């Protein structure tokens, strides 16, 4: 199967600070990330704040240019596609439905805007299409002339989803789409996203810090740490058999609603990852409960675990013959 989305050595750095008598620092937000997403799949991206998830989302949307490496959509570099073509095929759903909708425009106008930008149909046709899409995401047509301020958070997120889907894209980049919502509303939105995926044969990149949600939605998962992918595998395998100590710690930290189990000890210690001062060697080694000699000096490479879907970047497993170093 030809992948719908692929990144090759995708990197992005920012220059930050640089005040009086201070040299600007380089912040490597995304560091040589290789990802593959097949049509109809959902690629979950997890990691702590500052790991580069949202920068990655902006790179995939073409909102940021890579410092090096490239993003391929259906085999074509985003840079060559141009913004018009790109926005037809890739659409975003962001975290905060309060700031991502123009408060001065009506709901129907907001949803019809992508059609307007692309000059599709006349005004009445666009409005009809927008209302159809609103109904599809579970809003009734009498919301069409409301402003975002008159809707609840869940309804606003439905509007954002309708706007993303009105152009019939192939790929939707969801950046924390349910993080600002209540539990009951989160369930509605997740159900909707999964239904729409089947109906329109969509692919998602699903970025979230909520691992239970990612496990529920994603077909494959990439775990990011300080800009790097440290483990990637099919969702079922990753959650059943996490290999990287960081993935293990992340999964151990999830508080499932099971009384009596208490709060888990993650064993991560207090060294907080600072993207401006990344550690030498493996970026995770200062917090790693299983660190060894080479971890502080040698940067591990991402290698395929033989006989599994997993890719892994960890010295613990690197000497293991079950892992082939990625020689490409």
């Amino acid at each position, binding site marked *: 199967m030809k992948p719908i989305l692929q990144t090759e050595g995708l990197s992005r750095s920012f220059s930050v600070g640089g005040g009086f008598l201070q040299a600007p620092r380089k912040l490597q937000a995304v560091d040589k990330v290789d990802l593959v997403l097949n049509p109809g799949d959902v690629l979950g991206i997890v990691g702590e704040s500052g790991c580069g998830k949202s920068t990655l989302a902006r790179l995939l949307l073409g909102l940021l240019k890579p410092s090096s490496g490239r993003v391929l959509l259906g085999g074509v570099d985003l840079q060559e596609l141009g913004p018009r073509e790109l926005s037809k095929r890739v659409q975003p759903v962001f975290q905060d439905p309060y700031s991502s909708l123009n408060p001065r425009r009506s709901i129907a106008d907001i949803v019809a805007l992508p059609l307007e930008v692309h000059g599709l149909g006349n005004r009445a046709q666009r409005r009809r299409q927008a209302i159809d899409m609103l109904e599809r995401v579970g809003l009734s047509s009498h919301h069409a002339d409301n402003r975002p301020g008159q809707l609840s958070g869940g309804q606003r997120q439905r509007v954002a989803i309708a706007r993303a889907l009105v152009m019939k894209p192939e790929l939707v980049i969801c950046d924390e789409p349910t993080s600002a919502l209540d539990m009951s509303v989160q369930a509605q939105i997740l159900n909707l996203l*999964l239904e729409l995926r089947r109906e329109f044969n969509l692919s998602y990149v699903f970025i979230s810090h909520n*691992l239970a949600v990612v496990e529920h939605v994603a077909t494959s998962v990439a775990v990011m740490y300080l800009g790097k992918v440290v483990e990637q595998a099919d969702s079922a395998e990753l959650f059943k058999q996490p290999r990287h100590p960081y993935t293990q*710690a*992340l999964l*151990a*930290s999830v*508080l499932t609603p099971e009384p009596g189990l208490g709060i888990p000890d993650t064993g991560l210690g207090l060294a907080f990852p600072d993207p401006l001062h990344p550690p030498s060697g493996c970026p995770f080694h200062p917090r790693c409960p299983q660190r060894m000699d080479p971890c502080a000096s040698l940067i591990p490479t991402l290698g395929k675990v033989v006989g599994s879907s997993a890719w892994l970047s960890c010295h613990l497993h690197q000497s293991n013959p079950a892992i082939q170093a990625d020689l490409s």
Partner: protein
Amino acid sequence: MSDSAKDLVLDVQDLSVDIATPRGSLHAVRKLSFQLQRGETLCLVGESGCGKSMTSLALMGLLPKAARRSAARLELLGEDLMAASPKRINALRGRQMAMIFQEPMTALNPAYTVGEQLMESYLHHRKSSVSEARARAIFLLGKVGMASAEQRLTQYPHQLSGGLRQRVMIAMALMCEPALLVADEPSTALDVTIQAQILRLLVDLQRELGIAMLLVTHDLGVVARMAQRVAVMYAGEVVEQGAVSDIFATPHHPYTQALLRCIPVPGRTAPGSALGAIPGQVPSLVGEFQGCSFRDRCAYAQAACAQPVPMKRAASGHSWRCILAELPA
């Protein structure tokens, strides 16, 4: 005085909070009752707008100006908080009752160092010397797991990460060893890994010091792992209250049941399957409201639900507000 009375830290009966709005009085909290013992954790859980944060502010005497609280009883260690003067409340707040807020960045003052903020309440309440307060601050920063505590005292909040700021908040709340700790979403703004660390820390300190904790959260995972008892709030009311194990195993209120079905549970919910959603929206809290507040969204609603619904009580202490004798599974 009997042992149980001696251990009673907080006694709340029929606490209500009304907020004056242009459209009328908004009943943010309606007739809330609970008791909290020494060393116990009670979770208030519910979705936004259910009144859980208003409840915590009402207990601390920190309600916004437009809000008015009333209660049949509101006692901290046997002292009537409703009758206490503002001066007396100020004396209790920080010393006998302390609060941890969700956003450590907005709750800490950016213009003062960590040390100044930590020592302030201790100097004020204990009338101690600066060196004593400093020693106490260093001791507590060590307790909350901050390395090189002495240097931390001279740092400003912006120099700390979110997790460290929340540790400072916890240390600040514990400076005077309060009997009651109110924690309003203490880990919501944090990453899961840091959340686990912070909550573990809270549990350890609470056990060690025998603090009674009221934990306000929307996260059922946090409730299950932290609390002995839980009160589920909906539209300003407690709809179900009881031991955590009882409520998670056999919820008696349709809202609690629906809430538990909303969240994907690893290992239990099949990936990609439809999650239980709650249709509809929370009713307006402005004006008078009769009957069950959940009836418009409830799968089992009947005509009788429009009448006032009394609280049912089981011998285990489990109580719920629903006319159904038993919930269909």
